[in-house]
């Protein structure tokens, strides 16, 4: 008898939780979508002289650029839900008209990988470009199309994970 009650209660709980999931899905674009807010910021570096006459570099928001301008792209992922987010990875296509600067990709606690087609992501040593004559070589910086940051740890509620890269306007 005791077992039977437990079973009923269990079913009722299951029913409740699925009902609440449906209700949430109906009010949002996808189940749990939007738990991480991703913000992209473009900046350039500007050097100026401070009051002591020292050359100082500061970052300023980028809006207009010219060929040769180096842009620092910063991505910040914030968990705005009450539940931890697991297996978090950020993909960023290298913006059009831009060339990724080799060794400029940063991301604390993230495994960084690259792609030359947007499909296969790997470390640079494992990516190969096949030349017309059949020989293979490692990609040049201007051949990277995407960067991926795979965060090793979960992002807890209210926590933030950051990633950045630099690219030059062609």
């Amino acid at each position, binding site marked *: 008898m005791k077992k039977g009650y437990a079973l009923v209660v269990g079913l009722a709980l299951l029913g409740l939780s699925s009902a609440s999931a449906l209700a949430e899905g109906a009010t949002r674009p996808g189940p749990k979508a939007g738990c991480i807010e991703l913000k992209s910021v473009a900046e350039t570096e500007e050097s100026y002289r401070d009051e002591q006459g020292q050359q100082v570099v500061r970052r300023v928001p980028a*809006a207009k650029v010219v060929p040769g301008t180096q842009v620092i*792209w910063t991505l910040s992922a914030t968990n705005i839900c009450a539940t931890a987010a697991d297996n978090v990875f950020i*993909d960023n296509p290298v913006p059009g008209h831009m060339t990724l600067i080799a060794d400029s990709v940063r991301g604390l606690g993230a495994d960084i990988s690259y792609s030359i087609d947007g499909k296969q992501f790997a470390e640079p040593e494992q990516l190969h470009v096949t030349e017309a004559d059949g020989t293979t070589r490692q990609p040049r910086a201007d051949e990277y199309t995407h960067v991926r940051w795979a965060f090793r740890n979960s992002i807890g509620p209210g926590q933030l994970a950051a990633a950045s890269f630099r690219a030059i306007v062609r």
Partner: protein
Amino acid sequence: MKSRLQVGFLLAALSLAPAAHAVGALAGAQIQNTAQVNYIVGGSPATTNSNTVSLTVNEILDVVATLQSGDVPVAPGATNQVVVMRVTNTGNGSETFRLVLNSVLPGDDFDPTPSSPAIYFDSDGNGVVSAGDTPYVAGTNDPTLAPDAFVRLLVLNNIGAALANGARGFTRLTAESLTGIGNPGTVFNGQGTGGTDAVVGTTGADSFAVGTYLVSDISVTANKTAVVTDTFGGSRPLPGATIAYQIIVTATGSGTATSSVFSDAIPANTTYVPASLRLNGNAMTDAADADAGQFLTTPARVSVNLGNLTQAAGPQTIRFSVLIN
């Protein structure tokens, strides 16, 4: 529509560089970035896009003028002596350039006098003023060049009468961006392509090239004769008759006529007789190869590279034949 018309003009009148833009992102282009984050919350995979950041590519103003001629050998008193220059838009937007000529320069032995007109567009790219080449008039037909496009220009000067052999005279062509010039980084707000800002590039948005006239007491003359042989053993210019041409090129004076090239058009209604080209009696192939001569089409002509001609080298005899159609 306006830009299309300009492109049409460029194609007709100016030499265009290949379509590839060495300059990179064109003025007015938008650089957009949207990142994506993938994650699992409560067992459900989810994806969120970032905001889209949009950057506008400003116009960079850059130009390069280059000299296309070596030292131009000139005789004292010669008029309309040509130096070939090239002006290339190395910026990333369509830009119009003002051209300025100055032949009063330090460091040379004499000042050439600019002809009137002094600058021509070398529309057929042959390096000499020909019928279709239009004179440049500042403010009227300042060349508008697409990114990476260039225009070939002929700079004409007259040479003074009493000049010593070996004297040098400089002539300088400057191209300036009509939007403005200045120190690299100077910004002209809203004056770039498509309402972007125009920013002066590393060239300062102006560039010059200096050509040199070298007084060389040498004159080159060519004397052409023709012998007709018809198919009946006579010398009437009938269809099927052969015309054998002989041209004797003679250099007179103490200087050197450098990089001399003899070129002669095949007359209308005649056809070049293959492999008939001779230089000083030596046969030459019709192809462009190791020997000095070649036959070219459109327009049909023969060309012989005579190199550096001096009086000491003696007369150069060129022969070729054509068939009357």
